[in-house]
């Protein structure tokens, strides 16, 4: 099922110096307790709304594509999109 969401999530991430950026999510947990292990990060890019920056992480667990975002004002993570098929 493909869904656009804006659901607060908990994220395990590493912060280290690497060429693609310093923050790399490893896994995240949704509000209902489902845990997703991240297999691959597709693209990490900033989105701007005025001077506010949100980082979008497009990633996959191998079967489903996800977008999670990091709000750099509040440092909260959100699950924005979940899709397991394309038409």
């Amino acid at each position, binding site marked *: 099922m493909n869904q656009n969401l804006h659901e607060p999530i908990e994220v395990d991430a590493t912060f280290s110096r690497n*060429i*693609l950026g310093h923050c790399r999510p490893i896994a995240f947990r949704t509000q209902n307790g489902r845990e997703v292990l991240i297999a*691959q990060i*597709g*693209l990490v*890019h*900033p*989105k*701007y*709304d*005025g*001077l*506010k920056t949100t980082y*979008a992480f*497009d990633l*996959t667990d191998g079967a*489903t*594509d996800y977008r999670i975002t990091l709000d750099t004002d509040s440092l909260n993570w959100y699950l924005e999109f979940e*899709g397991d098929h*394309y*038409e």
Partner: protein
Amino acid sequence: MNDVMHIDLNSCFATIEQQSRPMLRGRPVAITNRITPNACIIAASYEAKAAGIKVGMRRKEAEAICKNIIFAETEPSKYIFVHEKLKHIMQDYSPDVVMKSIDEGVINLAVAPPHTKTRSRTEIGYEIKHRLLTEVGDYMRCNVGIASNRFLAKLAAELHKPDGLDEITPENQRAVFATLKLVDLPGINTRMERRLNAVNIFTPLQFLDADEQTLVKLVCKSIDGTKWYQRLRGIEVDDYLSGIKSVGRQYVMESNKLSREETRARILHLSEDVGYRLRSKHLYARGVYVWTYGYDDVYYHKSTILKNAIDTDQDICRNASRLFMQLPNPARIIGVTLYKLQRQPSAQMTFDQERIDRTERVCLAIDKINYRFGTRKIHSASSHGTEHVKTKIPFGSTRYLDHSIT
């Protein structure tokens, strides 16, 4: 040594979507501005191109050719991010980098620092390819063309797609040209091909061997003939930056059932957008041009040239609205363009100067708020309800690829 390097991202938007969403990789993907049955394809992945999908096709046509094609809607923030990353990589090699569009740019290595200038050009080209993979994403590919001028470098970049790297030198130029058709050369379309055919030039090699007078007097009938003569010989004639002559935006209507008032609201939305772009470049406009393309396939347009140059949303909207009311509705595509641009406001003061100054201050305050809190946080009431008329991908010019339109 060849000093011009042309970098071109392969099937840019489609590849970025495949980079972004790993499940799309290896599958035919078409990118459209909106997911509607009549949406026009603006980019296709190499898998889609192999299945016969072409840029410009309608969604229905594409689905008839390729049953398993996947449609994805454009997401400008991703493309602008990749554009910026590519530009930063290129700027590491020379201070003279010109981005020709969102997915291609030119590096002039003639002015590069000595430690770069002395390096092999192909080595630099492969390094840029590698950096694109490691710094943007492992699915990103680009074509690199190396030559002595922009024209030949772009041609070299188009020789082996995707992921090619080619150099055109005086030694291999004739061999390269022998494999091409006239329309394969950048800047040669079917009309120019017909003009060349008229003087018995049918191949790029014949074009290369043509004398300057033939090109000036018989083909181009202008100084352009000399430019082509030099361009083909690797002499740089395209190293210039053109100024801004107009600022415009267009919008493909989402429905044919919109009332005149609803269409007018979209015209005002476009007017506010072009106004913001105009002011972001510190320009003023004297010309306002409004056009519509009707469902009867007829192009309608109205324009006005004002005595005093304008730059505020209020003035632009008032003029655009007045012009639009003289055009027929419904429309399939609408557009607003400002032209006759100038750097200074009109010197002549008017009796109405106090009102003009007040309007300018209000406009400036709105721009500041929108810059701080995001595009269209404040806008005119008349354009309310048109939030879906968001800015799509600016093809060609990269002048407005800043945060304000993401």
